[in-house]
Every structure is written in structure tokens, then in C-alpha cells.
């Protein structure tokens, strides 16, 4: 059972206090988008064995959404950060690269 630190209120929250919200950093496609783009947005999800970026809500705490970077195999948590961003902070990406050289996730590649 995971614990994640809520970046909003600082609490190390038990998984039972949290609600998972699936993959992070989706780009919304609305009216006018083509079928493929809309399908990708609504249905297609990363399912990595390894580094993953997810949305969580501190439902039974402060109520805020946040993002977490986690290894789906070992449950290592690389960091949590605000949900109010379209991409993970660079220092977090650097930290992941240090621990998981060569990792890839969507268009987030390891810096050369």
C-alpha cells in the first residue's frame, strides 16, 4: 500500500486517503479534433513497466490533485509535484534519469 507525499499540504498520505486518477499530462482534445486525436485523449493510455507519471487526489485530506512519478515495478516514488503543470519539473526528470538511465515515457525522453 503506497504512501505519497501530497505536495500541496505536505502530508505523507496513505493510499486509502488517495484516489488514483490515471495517467498524467494528457492533452485535452475537444470539438474540432479528429477522431484519432480524440480517441488518444479519451481512451489510449501508457501502460509502462517502469517509470510512470500519474494523477492522484488527496481525497480524504486536503482534496487537492497532484502528480506522482513512480516505478510501476518496484513502487519507488521519484517525486510528487503540482497538478497545475503540463509537464514534470526538470529536476525530477534529472533525478529519474540518474536512477533509471535510458528510461522513456511518451515524449519525455532521457536528455541526451
Amino acid at each position, binding site marked *: *500500500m503506497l504512501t505519497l507525499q501530497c505536495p500541496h499540504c505536505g502530508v505523507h498520505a496513505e493510499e486509502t486517503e488517495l484516489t488514483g486518477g490515471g495517467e498524467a499530462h494528457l492533452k485535452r482534445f475537444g470539438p474540432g479534433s479528429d477522431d484519432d486525436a480524440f480517441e488518444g485523449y479519451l481512451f489510449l493510455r501508457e501502460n509502462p513497466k517502469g517509470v510512470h507519471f500519474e494523477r492522484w487526489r488527496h481525497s480524504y485530506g486536503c*482534496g487537492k490533485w497532484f502528480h506522482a512519478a513512480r516505478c510501476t515495478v518496484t513502487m519507488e516514488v521519484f517525486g510528487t509535484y503540482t497538478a497545475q503543470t503540463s509537464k514534470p519539473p526538470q529536476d525530477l526528470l534529472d533525478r529519474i534519469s540518474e536512477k533509471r538511465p535510458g528510461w522513456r515515457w511518451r515524449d519525455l525522453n532521457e536528455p541526451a
Partner: protein
Amino acid sequence: MSTRLATGGRLIDRSKPVRFQFNDTWLSGFEGDTLASALLANDKVMVGRSFKYHRPRGIVASGAEEPNALVNLGKGARHEPNQRATTTELFDGLYATSQNHWPSLEFDIGAINAKLARFLPAGFYYKMFIHPRPFWKHIYEPFIRQSAGLGRAPDPETRDPDTYEHFYAYVDVLVVGGGVAGLQAAKAAAKSGARVLLIEQTAHWGGRAAVDGGMVDGQPARDWIAATVKTLEGMENVTLRTRCMGAGVYDHGYVLGYERLNDHQPQADGPRHRLWRIRTKQIITATGAIERPISFAGNDLPGVMLASAVRDYVVNYGVAPGERTVVVTNNDDGYRTAIALKAAGLAVPAVIDPRVHAIDPPLVAQAKAAGIEVLMGRAVAKAKGGRRVTGIVVTAHSGEGAALREIACDCVAMSGGWSPVVHLWSHCGGKLTWDAHHAFFRPDPAKAPTGADGAPFVHVAGSANGYLFLKDVLQDAENAGRVSVGLERDPAPDANSEHAAPIHPVWMMPAKAGDDLRAKAWLDYQNDVKVSDVQLAAREGFESVEHTKRYTTLGMATDQGKLSNINGLAILSDALGEDIPQVGTTTFRPPYTPISMGAIAGQARDEIFQPIRKTPVHAWHEENGAVWEPVGQWRRPYCFPRKGESKHQAVRREVRATRNGVGLLDASTLGKIVVKGSDAGRFLDMLYTNLMSTLPVGKCRYGLMCTENGFLTDDGVVARLDEDTFLCHTTTGGADRIHAHMEEWLQTEWWDWKVYTANLTEQYAQIAVVGPKARVLLERLGGMDVSKEALPFMQWADGTLGSIPARVFRISFSGELSYEVAVPAGRGREFWDLCLHVGADLGITPYGTEALHVMRAEKGFIMIGDETDGTVIPQDLGLNWAISKKKADYIGKRAQERSHMTSADRWQLVGLETLDGSVLPDGAYAVADGRNANGQRNTQGRVTSTYYSPTLDKGIAMGLVHNGPARMGEVVVFLKEDGETKVKARIVNPVFYDPKGEKQDV
């Protein structure tokens, strides 16, 4: 026979006899006994029968690994099946019965299965029961029900009279296991000041060292144990718990502990079991090791036991499992049993050891010196006997089993070596490595379970880590304790070092045992899996250990293969011609031993299982005979039957009274969410299909909310309170969900918009005053103008009613003149009572959810959850008028543009009127011609809401029908619940009552 010895037994108190019953016979034991030791003291060696063949089964072990001695414990409401006699502490009045026999333990009809053994091979269930199908009902199932299954489940009507609780603990280091390793590790960790919790599954500290002895720091092991426990008890940063098992290790240092507080004293106050929900930074598993049986023919006879268990019974309980015990061992440790038995004055006719020693190791020499005959290079060809072992046949271990000699005995103590208890290490991903020298799997320190920071959080100590000698165990434990708190390693207390000859792995005895012997050599006692079964599975192509396990049921019994897994794995590896590590182990899953359902539930039962949400008027409903309907976590009155009235009659009365006079509804459960901020209008335009930003202050608008997938998810009336503030009403079940939905979009997509939300659902009581006389009633209350001119339909106003502050909405879910009045929650009951008082002569009638539903159905209003089911879009429900054509975007708009959503082929909302006036069954399907690929009738629609209408005195319904609105007047056929009886219904306008909407707008 097995008896109580005249002296000895370090755990029992001979001055305190304890009376108990087994199979309705009164027996006697001592305080400190387990049920198993007390049964053995009373010569009850055979205590049950096996699952498949109903073979006699005796006590094999002395602890949690026991596969055979499972009993029904207690009776009536306290009856509990499958309780291990070896871990059941004896108490006065204990009542136990044996399991899995019919009609009696001594004579069991199911034992005939044993004679049919050749028809019950591995994979029997898969092979035999597939066909023919009719055999299931008449032959297989009755046969299985009669003769299979272990304990009986309690009567479903009984209620557990005991209480249980959950307990949360947060520590730095959790040590699981209170043997010498656990004690030493706890001490080493605690010295740093870390908060340490040490739990031990039995009632006693010290583990095996307390039985097997040795010297630590110059004192006998037992004294060292007592002194160390005392030291730990004196440290304020250390918590110790006995009778508390480490059940499972989970991600990020979460551990479940299972404490059995009162199993041994059922009359005591307090909870019976406590589930510890522990969050720890580091875990040390000092869980010891379990001895392995040896696979020889007849090794399942009562009286054949683990060597360590035999000496436990002698040393701990002063019980001799047999008068003449043959020891068969492939390692030096087994000799301890021979020596202990001899010291207790019991006969040990021989130790049989397949090894050959050039120089006798110390324990072998000690046994010989005690006058015990040691047969080297020898093996047991088979054990003989029926309900009890009577002797063994000795053979050469290297051969096929030719008899060299027979030895009479009533007990066989076997030791096939030891397996570290690696369960807790493995639960969270710790890997194992095969130690060929010791012939066991041990934790691989390079592949420890890792935590949130990516670093190992589980450490192993002592024999759980593969160290079998006292000195090594203590040093390993000291290391584990120090490493767990980030310290360097340090020397441990000194202990006597030992020398032992290496184990000789024996997976089958004798080495070349023939078919007849292999078919009687048991691996899994409880599930009746033999060496021959695993070999057959291998021949049939089962190469994966996980598949073999399921095919043969090896290790799938309640003991989860604690004794059988390694032996079975070795047999499989041999049959496949592979090395043991290549074949690998099966997965270890929590809990370590079964834990009670009561402990899992904890306090969450009866009225606190799920707390009930109550409106401010709840008590009135209760006092006035409300029939309750659960709606989410709320309880809402379904109707208020009067004396002698049926529910149906009550609903009819409530509807008529409301339509003709005035009704009163407690609508407090409706969600009330305030959305505020300069971007609130813009936000609601995205949230609702309607255009909400244009709603004038003071007005109300009915709105629809969809998911991003286009489906209708909630509806309700929105009121604009001021330029920046909207009040959104949601459905009763939807308040929390919709509030969360709003927050999700605000926080994760439009976070730069200036909008705030607050869920005020419980801040207000909301009372609907409904019916042609509603205005009269409010005017009598006085305080504000509620005339048509001052407060027209679909508007709201703030004021006071009967001196209570009120916000009055002129909205209607019934089609009648209707005011929904929101008052502060604390004054809700006062307002309700006031309405009843003032309206008494108007015939004011409280009504419940069913009258509400009937009236809304008469008006053709949809209900979320009836007309919608997560596949319905607003366009299906004729709600196009509530979907803005002007907006470029709203949540769900893009999804509703998909070809399937815009197809003319959808099922759409219509009214349904039966030709005979009857009420259609809820959910009934309208059939179409032909059948689908599965041979089922094609359908063309279904009923979503159906009621008897008291207003129209006939059945009315709404339904979704294929292309329905274009088929007005057409008659379609629905099927009743029996799937055959036809009911004809005409497709009509769903608004049955006041289609022009004149009554609500007066």
C-alpha cells in the same frame, strides 16, 4: 501410545489442570498446553482425515506449519472451523470436534476413496468432471458435497458475539519473530533510540533456542532469553507483543499484524482479535525455519511426525508422542530429538540416517554415546500401520526399497532438513537464492524488497536468513538490527559454536523407490498429494511450478504448503531433469497463516459498517413510520403508511393529496454546490450542456452534466445568486461525485480560471412545498411575498418564512405549483413542523420518494440512474432543448459528435402505455424479430421507469425504444419476467400529465 511424562514440560503448570472436550469426550490437560499437546497427552494421535482420500491424519508439527490437526472449535455462534490444534492454547471448557469425516472419525465412509486412489489421479478434477455434463448434478456434486470439504462453515444465521478492532502503529523498525534472532535484532536496533515493535506469533519468547538450549554470553539460552526480554521491556522506545503474527508485508513498509488477544481466555473482556495496521520504515523478519518431512511410503500415518515437533512436545509440554520412536534424519539436527527422547527415558530403537560419516559429528557421537543405535546409509522403505504407525521397514537408501529389517515403533520422528521461513521477505518482492550446501532457498540479500526511496526496507535475521547455529544466528541478528537503523556492524554476544556434518538432501526415500512406494509417499498431507502425483503432472507436460501446483493442488490447502512446497518442488525438478532454482518457487502471498474475517472487518460492522447520513428532519420521519429507502449513504422516506395502509395505498394517497392540495417533501439530500468567482459562468458553460453564463441573477435553469465521454451523468437546477455566484443543485447521490468532478477540472485542466467551489449540501435543509395549495401555506407562514408576480416560476428569492431565514426556489419536479425552501440546517425541523402545523387544515401531506418518482414520471421528467445508465446521452432523452447550440465546447460535446452518437439508430426516450392499462415490469425488454448470434431474441427497447399512476388510474412507463420518437402510436411487445408472457404497449409522448405545463406556472 502417547502419554504425559511424569516430569518435565517447561511451558505447563501441573498444578493447574484444565478440562476440555474433544468429540464430546471430556479430557484433561494443564494450563500452558496447546490443544495438540493435550490431545497427545490423552493418546489422541489421530485427529482428523485428509481432504481427498479421508486417510487417518495425526498431529505432525507443533506450530503454525501444522497441516493435519485442524479442528472445529467452539459451538453455536462461536463455532469456527479449520483451527490448528498446534496453535490453539488450551483453556477450561474448550470444545473441539474433528473434521472431514462421516459418519465418525474412527469409521469414515469416505476412506473408500483411498481404495479408489488410482481413479483419483493428479488433475482428477480437471480430467473427470469436464463431461458428461449431466453427471455433475446427479453424481459428482452430491458425492463431493457429502464427502469432501474440511470444516463446516458456521450457520449463516449466527452472529459473531465477539468484538474485533483495528490498531494503527507507526514505528521505525518492526521485528517479526521473537526467537533469539528477533530479540537480538530488536535490541540492536533499539539501542539507537529507534522506535521498535517486536511481535511474536506464539505466547512465548525464545523460539527454538528455548527448546534446543545452548550457551549465550556464558549463560543458558533460556536465561539469556528471559534477561533480554526484560531489558527490552524496560526500554520506552520498544513495544513487545506476543500472540501477534506478522501476517503480510506490503508496499512502502505497510505490515499487517494479527494479534489473538483472547482466544486463550474466551471469557475475558475486550476484543478477541486485533488487526495491527503497521507503517514501518524498516522490517526485520526473524521468522525462523520450518523442518521438512521426508517422502517415504506411509509417511502420512498418525504417529509420523516432524523430529523437532517430537522434541517440542517432550521438552515444552512433558508429553511423549510415542513410547518407541524411530528417528529418520538426513541432517545432524534430527539427532537432538533422539537425544532428548532418550534423556526423557523413552525408547529410541534406531536413528536411520542415509548419510555415511567417516568421523561422527558431535551430535551423532552424542547419540551413540547415549546408547542409541545409528543405522548409516539406511532409509525407511515404508512405515506400516493403519490408524497409527506400528513399525518401519529399513532398507538401503541407495536402493529400491528391499527390506533389510523391520523395527516396531509407535512414533517416527523425521527430519528432512530445514527451510527458512521466507514468506514475509517474499510478500513484497524479495527474491530467493538456492543454497545447495544447505539444500534450501534463502533470501537473496542483493534482491531485497525496496521501498518508496528505492532502498531495501526488509532485512532478514537468523535462521530465516539461513543461519542454523546459535552463534551465527545471533551475529546475523545483530547485523540486521544495526543495519536497519543505519549503523555499522558490530560483534554479537558470544555463543557456543557448533560443528555439524552437511545435510544430504533426500527428496525421496529410498533414492530409487519404485512405483508402489512413490504412490504412498505423501508430499501434501492435507490435500493428499503424493510423489507420484507430481511426477505424473510432469509427465503430462506441466513444467511450470505454478501450473503443477494448481493441477495437483500441491500446497493449495489451508497450510499453503508450508511443509510440502520444497519437497514437491524438488520432485518436480527431478522429474523435469532440471535444477531446483531453474524450476523456481511458487508465489508467497499474505497472510502467513489464515486470519479471522472478524479481524479484517474490525469495528466496521452493524450500524457503523457504513454510517448513515441523516437529514435535519430524519427523526420526524422515523417517528412517523417512514418506510426507508437507501439513497447513497442517506436514508430517505419511501412513503409514510398510516395504520392499516399498504405501501402502495400510502403512495397513492400521498400523490393524490399533493396533486389536489399540498404535499411536503424533505429534499434536504439534494446536492447544493456553490460555484463562485469571476470565471464561474465560463466554468459552468463547460460543465453543463446548457448556456449558464447568460442566466440572469435571480433566475433558475435546469441543467445537464455529461462526462467527457458524452454520457449524461447528473442533472439539477442552477440558480444564479449574484454576478459571480451560482448555486448548483445535484442529485442526492451525486453531490460528492459532482463536487469532485468540478474540482478535478478546475485543478487539473483550467487551473488558471478564477473559480471556487464549496459543497454546502449539509448546511441547508430543503423542504419542497408542493401542490395547488402551496402558496396559501407559505402566505400563512408570512414574511415574504411569494405571489406569481413577485416570485414567478423558475426564479428564487431570499427572505424569511415564519421568521426563519429562507431561500425560496420556484422550481417543480412534480408539475405542480411548487416552492423548494432552503433554511439553515439547524432550523430545518422547526420549519417542517411549522408547515405541518399551519397546513393541518389544508390536509398537508408529507410524501416520500416513491410519490416523488410517480409524479415526476407522470410529467415525463427523467431520473438519473433510471433513464440513464452510463450509456445514454442527453440527445437520447429528447433533451436537445437543454443543449446549447451556441457554445463551442462543453465537457462531452466532442464525444457526442462521434458517428455512433449521432446515428439515427439509437434507442430513444418515449412514453409507453399498455393497451390493457397494466403496469409494465421494470426493465422489461421489447422484443424484435429474429435472434442474435447467441440464439437470444433480438430486442428493440426497454422499460426505464414504470409506475401505476394514481392521477390517471393506469400504468404509465418510460422507456428507450429503437428510433422511438419517430414511431409514435406504434404498438410494441414487451415480455414479462417469465420471458414469455407478452404485454402490448403503445409508444406515446412521455409527458402523461399536464403536457402544456400550466399547473406549475400559476
